[in-house]
């Protein structure tokens, strides 16, 4: 039941960010929403058993492709480079909520996908050992991405 609730919540969040990305008038707002869509999709891939695909999704789409979009938007001057203080606050609050959620995940145990897989091969024991530090890895990763997100929002909030 908890698993289904979690999947429905993440799906609703993905749909909400996609709708904002597609129907927003400002390209800069669309870019930020698309960033969160890609990150949420990476979280889904990671939670449901494939951390490699999830991390690759986050690194390529949330990282590289978002920077490419940002460069193109700045080159073409399509954005007015002003998302306002309200949206900056929303970005900061959203990042803080993600951090709190991951911290709660770290404290609790037995949530879906955040437990090591069953390894039958002895040679895979290293991965089982590394998995113990997986929540901390995720926490550091999301901290870095939240910082990058606030930086991008700060960049948009300045007139150049």
């Amino acid at each position: 039941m908890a698993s289904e609730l979690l999947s429905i919540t993440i799906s609703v969040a993905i749909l909400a960010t996609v709708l904002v990305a597609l129907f927003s008038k400002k390209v800069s707002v669309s870019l930020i929403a698309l960033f969160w869509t890609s990150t949420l999709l990476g979280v889904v891939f990671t939670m449901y058993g494939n951390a490699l695909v999830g991390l690759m999704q986050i690194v390529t789409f949330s990282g590289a492709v978002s920077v490419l979009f940002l460069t193109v938007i700045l080159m073409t001057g399509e954005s007015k480079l002003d998302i306002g203080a309200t949206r900056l606050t929303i970005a900061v609050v959203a990042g803080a909520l993600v951090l709190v959620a991951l911290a709660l995940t770290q404290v609790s145990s037995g949530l879906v996908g955040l437990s090591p897989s069953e390894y039958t091969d002895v040679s895979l024991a290293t991965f089982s050992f590394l998995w113990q530090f997986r929540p901390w890895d995720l926490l550091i990763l999301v901290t870095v991405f939240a910082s990058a997100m606030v930086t991008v929002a700060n960049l948009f909030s300045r007139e150049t």
Partner: protein
Amino acid sequence: MVADQIVFMSTGILLVFLGIASISYSKNLIKTVMSFQVVLLGANLALFSSGLNGSLSTVAGTRLTTDSFVFLSVLVGAAVEAVGLAIVVNVYRKYGTLNPSEIRKLRH
């Protein structure tokens, strides 16, 4: 797990249709590329969720078929988007606008 599969499969298919609809009426080439990314993300989510029913063979928790295709799709999709954005920049330099209908008028 089957309920999760249905939820994510539905979300993925919805994303694909939303992206295609947005491509068809978009007035900005950057938004068109963003819509293409939404289609790609939806397709990846649907493909990933198709392997969630546990009937596929796994190695160290990785489903061999679907996850490999999603991995390949992520990398190829990122490359395609990079090329698309490069084309957008070239179009803007040549025509001075990103509106497809204006570009069509300027061509004639």
